[in-house]
């Protein structure tokens, strides 16, 4: 069952389409990745899902309710982890979480229990009485998450929650996302780190220039570019005749030379690898290393847009 449904959603800034007729369905209980370079429209889409921005066209339904018609009701079901730290430095960690918990309608013993739970979940229980100004970057990020999950929201939206933190904190956050999902929350996770999305998300939508250019599981997306594989060969004694024979080979679509490496593109490496080894032997080329690169989300983005995710 779809928890979040975006139908033909449009957002314009100064007449320019920032989100261009986006259609998307996010199933209840899944971790949904939103991948794309900066300026792709991810944050705008998330802001519209949270009711922070008005939709210029189309409709967003969460749990069957229209975001435009029921903004306050929707906001009770959402926990937003903003891209930027959104904390009060003059309040302690516990007070920060308590304040946002109260605004979510929690009171009394339940509030105390949920605050302790959120701080414990993010590994900050022992720093509850400390102010965020004394925290490391990773701890601040975790507190940023705690402030969004204390009311056990049905939908957690994380907007690039691992920006600028150390690998240990990043792993902690990624594990937290999985754990929250196991506890029953649906998660929308945006990032421009392909490997993060690939590691934790059940399904991924790739956005570029306001469009969703691909959507599916990682496997489904990889299969879209599986027709073309890359073989990277590091070799010496590479003659012009050797290169020419590689280029003329019916299974090799193109040959690129980058530094001391040859990159050979094939529709599929099956059967092609033996031919390549034979051509090298024939021309006395000496191979020092060879690797076959399987397609990934980065490759997919590259093949769809001609740019990398970090361009």
């Amino acid at each position, binding site marked *: 069952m779809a928890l979040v449904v975006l139908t033909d959603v449009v957002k314009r800034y100064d007449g320019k389409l920032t989100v261009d007729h986006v259609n998307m369905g996010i199933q209840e209980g899944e971790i949904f990745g939103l991948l794309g370079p900066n300026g792709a429209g991810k944050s705008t889409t998330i802001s519209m899902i949270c009711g922070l921005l008005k939709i210029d066209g189309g409709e967003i339904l969460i749990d069957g309710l229209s975001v435009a018609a029921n903004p306050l009701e929707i906001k009770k079901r959402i926990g937003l982890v903003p891209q930027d730290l959104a904390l009060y430095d*003059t309040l302690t960690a516990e007070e920060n979480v308590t304040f946002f918990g109260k605004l979510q309608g929690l009171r009394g013993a339940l509030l105390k229990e949920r605050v302790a739970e959120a701080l414990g979940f993010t590994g900050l229980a022992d720093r509850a009485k400390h102010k965020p100004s004394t925290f490391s970057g990773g701890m601040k990020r975790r507190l940023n998450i705690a402030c969004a999950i204390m009311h056990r929201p049905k939908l957690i939206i994380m907007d690039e929650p691992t920006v600028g933190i150390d690998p240990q904190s990043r792993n902690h956050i990624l594990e937290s996302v999985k754990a929250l999902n196991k506890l029953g929350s649906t998660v929308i996770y945006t990032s421009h780190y392909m490997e993060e999305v690939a590691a934790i998300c059940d399904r991924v939508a790739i956005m570029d220039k306001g469009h969703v250019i691909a959507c599916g599981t990682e496997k489904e997306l990889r299969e879209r570019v599986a027709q073309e594989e890359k073989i990277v060969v590091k070799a010496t004694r590479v003659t012009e005749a050797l290169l020419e024979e590689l280029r003329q080979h019916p299974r090799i679509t193109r040959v690129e030379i980058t530094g001391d490496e040859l990159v050979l593109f094939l529709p599929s490496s099956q059967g092609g690898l033996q031919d390549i080894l034979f051509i090298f032997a024939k021309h006395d080329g000496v191979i020092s290393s060879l690797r076959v690169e399987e397609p990934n989300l980065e490759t997919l983005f590259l093949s769809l847009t001609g740019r990398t995710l970090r361009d």
Partner: protein
Amino acid sequence: MKTILTIMAYELRRLVRSRSNLLNMFLLPLVLIFLLGSSLSSVMGGKAPSSIEQVRVAIVNPTNSGGSEASGMLAELLKLPELKEQLIPLETESREEAESGLRTGKYGYAVIVPPGFDEKVRSGGQAQLEFILGKDRTDNLVAGTVFDNFLDTLNYTQSAMRVLGPAVLTAAAAPGVEGDSVQLGELGKGGRSYTASQFYAVSMTVMFLLYSGLTVTISLFNEKENHTLFRLSSMPVKASQLFIGKMLGIAVITIFQGTTLIVLTNLLFGVDWGNRPLLLILFCLLIIIASLTLSVVITLFSKTGASARSVITVIIVGMTFISGGMAPLPEAWVNSAGVFTINHWALQAILKMMLHTELAQILPNLLVLSLICVALFAAAIFSYRKVGYHG
């Protein structure tokens, strides 16, 4: 309502936790009131009337030099009991002796009576005496006032006689002075006067209450700059609730600030805030409302926190200066340019309260300040609806 109270409570908590904020709100005005009140007390009213010593006046009357033309009129004047507190008349033989006595400090003032003074006056001539001033300004002022008054009275009678006939002369046969010629006190002000401490206690309190608006601006922009507004906007909280909650929090701490300043200036500097405490509280509340609403308008139309803070600071300091709150300005200035400031109406009203002025004289200030608040409140609502408060 719970949401508004929560936002208010946490706004208060954050304000109270900021040491610089507390110092600015409570310590700085007290220090300014103390410094300005004590350093400028000499240029303002409110001093106790100072006492004056009797002036030793050398009288050179022709009779002293053996003539028969000694002035009986002057002799009668000098016998008046009211003058005994102010003058010690000392008959002197000659002008030279009087001048010598003035130089040595034996006399503080000298009066030379011309020969035939009484006859000249009785025949309708102008009364004239010669005065030689001494070294002390106050002595000269006191003695000069007495004898000037004496001559004025005589000359006035002479003029009346010319117009109305000699009968007047009979009526004025015994020229003298009705009551004291010299009286100590604030004659020009006709009653009580405020002290420098009172003046600066009011002007600084008004100015710092107006600064509550700056706290609003800082708070509203901090929510944007710290990205907490983004998170708050994603929660089930209406923007109006957030706005009202923050305003209430700042209003509460400003009310506490005003109360503290009033109580502490009274205890520490002996500032008498007058006999109308409820009216004083009402004026403080109106100042706070005016300040908060004015700042909301400026904040909503400002692109950055820095520009909003600058505009508000310039307005507050400017209004305080124009209204005469920094230093007492000429009455004409205060009553012309000053009337366009919030400070003017509050400052003048509270000063009137301190002087125990009748309520009827304070009510116009209350009316004008209330109208300013209504206008600013309407402008704030209009601005909010037009611009809104977004992250």
